Structures are given as C-alpha cells and as structure tokens.
C-alpha cells in the first residue's frame, strides 16, 4: 500500500524517470484511474452488484452487466503475469531497456494492468514476482494549463525485496 508514500519518495531509488513519456488524455471513464495516484491510491473500476473489479474502466460491468460501477481503491499489490524487456527505441526521450509487464492485481487476479517494473534487475524479473504500485506524476511540474496524471508503476513488493536490495 502506498498511502504513506509520496511519488517523490517512491521514485528516489535507482530508477530514474525518463525524460519523456507519452501521456494519456483521461476521459470521463478513465480520469479516476489516472488521477488516483495523487492520493497514493490505485483506483480500479468496481462493480457494486457482483463485487468484482474490471479494467479498463467503463460504464458497465462486463461480468454481470450492472451499471452500478465506479472506481474503488485496491491494495496496490500485484503479481507479474508476463513481461518483456523492451530493447527497441520507440520514443525519443525514453531509451531502452525497460521492462513492460502485465501484472495481475492481488484484489482481482482477472484484472491485469500494463505497466513498467522498475528497480528490479532485468535478470530478476520473473513470472510470479510480487510487486507493489507507486505513482509517477506527469508532468512533474504541471503548468497552469496542464492536468497532471499519475502513472501506476510497479516495483518489487517490500516483503520480497529482502536484503539483496
């Protein structure tokens, strides 16, 4: 859980933010997902009827078709389901290598997020690695016309880091 951590603290390890990321332009449906990090919360669409989470956000639960849905915080803990080490430069200002992963949320393993795993040596990223969320605010210093977003990134969960790090 990251309630007690600020983005600045979370980013203060070996990982350094890239010069540039391509940023989402949140919609009415996705705004909560991209802004929950302001309060250190990972907000995932939740169905009040069947009790399940789902992603990406939308106006209806795909399982039970209830429209009684809305963003709710999850623990921020997740497990790596699959990953890739991207070696190809795609985005000027965001040089490889970096790890892109699908992580399954502890609160709802059916819900996967695409994210970056950071602060884990490339050869130690593996399926099943337990990770936890932290947030990276973009732009770091928003101008008067910018609506910042908080990207959910993941690093090894505290309990699994041990003394090696």
């Amino acid at each position, binding site marked *: 859980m990251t309630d007690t951590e600020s983005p600045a603290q979370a980013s203060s390890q070996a990982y350094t933010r*890239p010069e540039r*990321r*391509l*940023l*989402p*332009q949140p*919609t009415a449906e*996705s705004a909560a997902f991209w802004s929950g990090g302001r309060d250190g919360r990972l907000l995932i669409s939740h169905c009040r009827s069947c009790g399940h989470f789902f*992603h*990406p956000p939308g106006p209806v639960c*795909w399982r039970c078709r209830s429209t009684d849905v809305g963003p709710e915080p999850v623990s921020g803990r997740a497990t790596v*389901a*699959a*990953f*890739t*080490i*991207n*070696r*190809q*430069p*795609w*985005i*000027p200002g*965001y040089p490889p290598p*970096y790890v*892109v*992963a*699908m992580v399954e949320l502890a609160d709802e393993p*059916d*819900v*996967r*997020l*695409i*994210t*970056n795993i950071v602060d884990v040596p490339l050869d130690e990223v593996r*399926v099943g690695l337990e990770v936890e969320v932290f947030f990276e605010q*973009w732009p770091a210093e928003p101008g008067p016309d910018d609506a910042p*977003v908080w*990207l959910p*990134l993941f690093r090894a969960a505290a309990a699994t880091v041990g003394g090696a790090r």
Partner: protein
Amino acid sequence: MSGGPFDGKAVVTGAGKSQVGRRLGRTGLDLTIEAVTRAIADAGLSVDDIDGIASYPGPGVPDLGFSGATITEVRNALGLRSRWYLSSTETAGQIGPAIEACMAVTLGLANHVVVYRSVWESTAQAGAGRASVLFGGGALSGHLEYTGPFGALSAANWLSMPAQRYMHDFGLTREQLSAIPLNARANAGLNPDAIYRDPLTLDDYLNARMISEPLCLFDCDVPCDGATAVIISRRDAAAGLPRHPLTVESVGTGMFERATWDQRVDVTTMAAHDVAATLWEHTTLGPADVDLAQLYDGFSFLTVIWLEALGFAEHGKVGPFIESGERIALDGPLPLNTSGGQLSGGRLHGMGFLHEACVQLWGEGGERQARNSPEVAAVGVGGGPVGGAMLLSTR
C-alpha cells in the same frame, strides 16, 4: 463441396498480386488496381463482370500506408457497377471482408466480388520515426491509452508478453520458435516476389538483436508496399471460368472474450482460439484433413498460436511440433507459409496468406509449390484480439 456455412456456393475463382517491394514509390491505389485487375483477369472475368467489392480496413484508420486504397477510390477509379460493397476493420481479421463476400455471393447479393488488401507502409513510413509510425501523435486512444504511457507502443511489446509467458509455462524455446522464421526464409528464397530471400541460419537468428524479449528482429515481419486480391464468386456464376473453383469449406469468425491484448482469461491464448473453434463447428473436416497451412506471422509467435488454435498441436505443445521445421517444410506433411509469410515475404497484411493458399491449391507455386499436392488449406490471420480463418479445398 456442399455443406458448411455457404453450402458449397462460395468459391474462389481468381487471385492476383501487385508488384511487392520496399519503398516502391507507387501509390496505394496504383498497387491496388494492379492486384485487382490481375485477379479479375486470372479468374477469366472482365471488370464489368465484377459486381461486388470488399476490403480491409477501409477509411478512417491512421494512415502511414496502412490503408492502400478505400473501396470508394477503387470503385471510382475502375468505374465499377457494384451491387454489393463493404469495408471493415471490426470484422474477423484482415480476411473478414473476404468472409463477408462469401456471404454476399451465397445470398445472391453479388456474383463476383473482388476482395483486396493493399499497403504501402514501406514508402509511407520512409523517413518517419518509429514512434510516429506506431502512434502518429495526438491522443493515445483505445488500447494505447493504457500501454503507451509505459513505452509499450508496439504490437511487438504486446505480443512478447504472451510469448514470454508461453515459454515460461510450456518450455517453448527460442530454438524451437526459430523454426517459424527459418521456414519462412527458406520458402521466401524460392519466391521471386519475397522481400528477404537470403538464407537465414539458426545462428543468425539466435544472435539477432532483441526487439522486445523474447522476440528478436527475425520474429517481426517486414513492412512492404504491395496489394493482393482474390475473386469470390457464387459457384453457379462461375461455370465456364478457366480455373477450378476453390470451395470455401468453412470460416472462423468467433470472438468469445473481450477483445483486448491483456485481459483474456488465459494470456497464452488469443482470439485465434475462438476463431478456430467456430471454423471447425461449421464443417465435417478436421485438422487432420488439412495439408497446407497459411498462418499469420506478423510476429513468429502468432504462428505458434494459430498452429495450436487450429488443432494441429495441443495447447502448449507447439514447440515440439515445429522443432527442426520438418513438419512445416515444403516437403513435410503440413507445409506452412509457403510464400515466405510476412516475416520474409512482406507484410501484405493477412490477405497475402489467402492469396498464397489459392496459388498452392491450384498447384501454381512454382519452385515453392508444396510437395504434397495440397487439397485442403487452412488460412488463419490476425493476432492478439484480432482473428479470422478460412478453410479452402479443391473438392
């Protein structure tokens, strides 16, 4: 020849391909007209006989050479009198419009439909940065909203993750996976239209630079300029035409889960599995009857997925199936991607596989002709949440 979703009425009567190459400097419409008119002539028809036209993707997609020519452009250029026409992206993969053309001729909405796909990505993307090719600026929309911020802009990233998980769960090795690109390259060497024809070795593959692990350069297809077209006819309108009509025995159009790159219940399966399930529902034929496979290889791992989805190997067991490449070679029991696929032949984007299946069933593959004189061909195209399939026969 009878039965199946079209009761034997939908047949392929001709196929055509334009010049294919890198940075040809020709327009998408120019290439399209070349492929379309060659297909029409191949069927023994004239332009005035064509009363239907269909294509993927149609207008409204980010361009950069992805859409060579719209239906409107081709109709207007040729002065077509069409009784039925359609383009679509929300359909069963890049051959979805061909499947819909089968419905149109079966129902009598048209007699002869020309179906084409054209790309001029190699020319259009020349000089443009990679990010602009993939994204083009503006808002990250749809799926990209949730992947782009994390530097996962390319399908190479989205598909390397299920590939990694498949390797983790089932022990697929890079050596085994290499059978797909090595087979494609070997076949491309026998195809004068292919982009990459020089021999490729296992060492070349294993030492190639990684794009997005575990996928390396040779696991990714090559953008090209080119167009392919086929003529879908109603059997009773095809009497007297020069070619033996190829029967569309079945089609696969299923999509049982949400169409996403990452939320499928089993991340080691894809839309292809749903597509294949519906393909086999409609026919008494089965995987053992197939003697030619043309399976999408925008990334090598997608061919792995199609091989198991269509039932040629069990789930998770494609590695041993393709190992050594003998089964899928031109002289094997299931010749695969005989033109070099998209990996070495060029990204004709799905329709190239349908074109090649027809060429092979007519026995006109030349040096690359499958040695087993194929009579039943399976075509599966698309990857991730996109997929469509077709089963063709000479029967």
